[in-house]
């Protein structure tokens, strides 16, 4: 039921939604970290030969079919969110919500707690992303640019700590955050999230840092830049895709997590969106669940993720453009 990959086996979907390793954000995979466009989606071999149109068309068709398969559950969520509960209980599926309305959205938005939960979720998620990126970046720098005693143990610890199953941890996590007097606070839950996400991001960023040859920086210094300038102008932009990928990962983990939040954020004022969604799932023992509202809430929770994807995609492009160095 939970989503923090490292600590949380439950880690459901979000865990499984780790970002791509080593290169750019998936949305723009046609761009290499060195800023050059790669592939353009055409198979180079195919370009050279007489174009086998039929084969290409068949492959494109396959791609469309696969897209539909992957989209269908998403479509079903959105479609269901527009339907009243009684229709969702029908044995005959409603494939197109012709009689749909926005009533479910109206109900969940005017119901209780959406603005508060949104604010809480944004605070926790953004704090987690920022802290994770900072901590993981520093650690990645250390293990890829330095040789030091204990380095190997650190790398190993980072790898292994992700393997601890989390189903039995909730009492310890509660006691820990309780003893810091941080229950029901953004900071308390963030501490757990950061600890859970940092290992994987260190590992991922390590690859990116190692991928930037130190000679690039040194060459720039020969050209008269200070080390600071060299780092900022040469190395840092090349790390942008890695930072974005790690950021996406941390974002998804923190955004969807709910087993830790359930235990640490018990008071009404401190609920995050996944906990808010749960209250629609189990509203009452004496009323049935309104699935239309559950789906409307789910759709609302997915929207910021999609917005985030779009935002970082733009950021990354500009970062790459300004910092592009022909490798």
């Amino acid at each position, binding site marked *: 039921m939970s989503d923090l990959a490292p600590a949380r086996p439950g880690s459901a979907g979000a865990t499984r939604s780790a970002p791509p390793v080593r290169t750019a954000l998936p949305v723009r995979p046609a761009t290499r970290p060195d800023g050059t466009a790669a592939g353009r989606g055409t198979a180079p071999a195919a370009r050279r030969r007489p174009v086998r149109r039929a084969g290409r068309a068949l492959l494109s068709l396959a791609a469309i079919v696969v897209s539909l398969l992957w989209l269908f559950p998403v479509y079903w969520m959105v479609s269901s969110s527009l339907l009243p509960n009684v229709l969702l*209980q029908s044995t005959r599926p409603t494939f197109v919500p012709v009689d749909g309305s926005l009533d479910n959205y109206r109900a969940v938005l005017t119901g209780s707690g959406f603005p508060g939960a949104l604010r*809480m979720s944004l605070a926790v998620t953004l704090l987690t992303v920022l802290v994770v990126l900072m*901590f993981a970046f520093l650690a990645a720098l250390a293990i890829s640019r330095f040789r030091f005693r204990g380095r190997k143990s650190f790398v190993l610890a980072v790898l292994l700590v992700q393997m601890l199953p989390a189903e039995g941890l909730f009492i310890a996590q509660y006691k820990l955050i309780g003893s810091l007097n941080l229950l029901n606070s*953004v900071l308390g839950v963030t501490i757990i999230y950061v600890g859970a996400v940092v290992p994987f991001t260190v590992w991922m960023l390590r690859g990116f840092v190692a991928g930037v040859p130190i000679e690039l920086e040194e060459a720039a210094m020969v050209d008269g830049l200070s080390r600071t300038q060299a780092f900022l102008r040469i190395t840092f932009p090349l790390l942008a895709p890695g930072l974005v990928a790690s950021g996406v990962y941390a974002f998804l983990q923190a955004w969807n997590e709910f087993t830790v939040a359930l235990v640490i954020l018990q008071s009404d004022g*401190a609920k995050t969106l996944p906990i808010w969604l749960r209250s629609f799932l189990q*509203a009452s023992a004496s009323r*049935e669940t309104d699935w239309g509202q559950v789906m409307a809430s789910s759709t609302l929770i997915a929207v910021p993720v999609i917005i985030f994807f779009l935002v970082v995609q733009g950021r990354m492009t500009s970062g790459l453009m300004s910092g592009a160095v022909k490798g």
Partner: protein
Amino acid sequence: MTILRSAAVGAALALTLGACSSGTTSSETPAGESSAPESASITLWLAGGDTPDALREYLTTEFENENPGSTLVIEQQDWGDLVTKLTTALPDANNTPDVVELGNTQSPTFTNVGAFLDISDMYDELGGDKLLPSFVEAGAVDGANYTLPYYFGSRYMFYRADVWAEAGVSVPTTLAEFNEAVVTIAEANPRDIANFSGFFLGGQDWRNAISWIFANGGDLATKVDGQWVSTLSDPSSIEGLTQLQEIWAKASNAPADAKDQSPWLYINDTDSATNEDSSTTDTSLAAATIMAPGWAHWSIGDLEVVDDKPVRTWNDETFGTFVLPGVDGGAAPVFAGGSNIGISATSQHPELATSLMRIVFSPEYQQMLGENGLGPANSDYMSSLGDDQFATALIESASNSQLTPAAPGWAAVEGSGLLEEFFSKVSQGGDITALAAEYDEKITPLLNGVG
């Protein structure tokens, strides 16, 4: 540790996200304030959305009137997460809610480990023997009262009056008649529906199924020499299980892994599908009878459009209710749902919490519970439920209702999933005696709790 802590805090501060404002601990109060209970804030945890808003407002207002300067914060916890939250928060004096509602079957487990305050001294004041005895027992240990009933619900039968009539059977007056009637309906299948059930009973639906054990004089567990023992192998239990197996074999087409979630889906007509011969079939109707908590009637009825929205409207010509009859007539002892309420043993404000308990058990509040369809804890206010058929069925079925054993490890038994498995295997035609012995052996060690 100090360094680690300040590192984390420092990092967070550096990021200057003023996000912590929303994270206040409502029950947190400076130490020493417990000596001045008239100016504190206490927290009440309500389980699920069952207590209507009007009742919550009444509690808050009334509490603040009686305790000027103090406030009551009501927080709603979801049923599915309640055990996890009680496990973590109740032992924590700094963060514990002061008054807590919990499921009646969860109560024995928590009262036995000392999670609640002994309130025996106010038992008589709060209603005494007018309070539902089975619930009181679920909150008592060695004669001392820790939690008391909050409200009750009970299960009765909803049936398709039209289908029953088409099959030529009438409402039964004894359990044997019921068992026979639902088989007859299933075999007649008057509307020729695929997978039709005379009585829809999920294979893992032990909460409804145990009524047959109770009705035949059996029980799930009993206390022998101070130790709890599972009693599925008791001859009375076996008798009930045998009847159940017959129902599962001949009357119910519910999946062997179905639980008691939304059975009403199967007795509603949702829509009609056109067959090849252009006749139409009511596709959702899959059962002539279900057993469900009383509030299910809000979800049962004809599909009508009111204010442009499709809703369920109860129709007496199509639907009906009756109480599961006992072996010799009357009401069978069915499983009583509902919840208990108590004061956390670690509460910093026991006096204020006591004051809240008095309001909950006041005539006004008990009356309000009934008016909202929740069975009041105090039997003096039963009439507040009203006198329509749902209220009548609720009161009648509750009159003889029974709870799961008040064993310290009962929550562990429920959490282990053993009951679901046992009943599911019985529903699939397993050897009852062998299964009962096998699961008695598995359940008994859990009953007395770990540690």
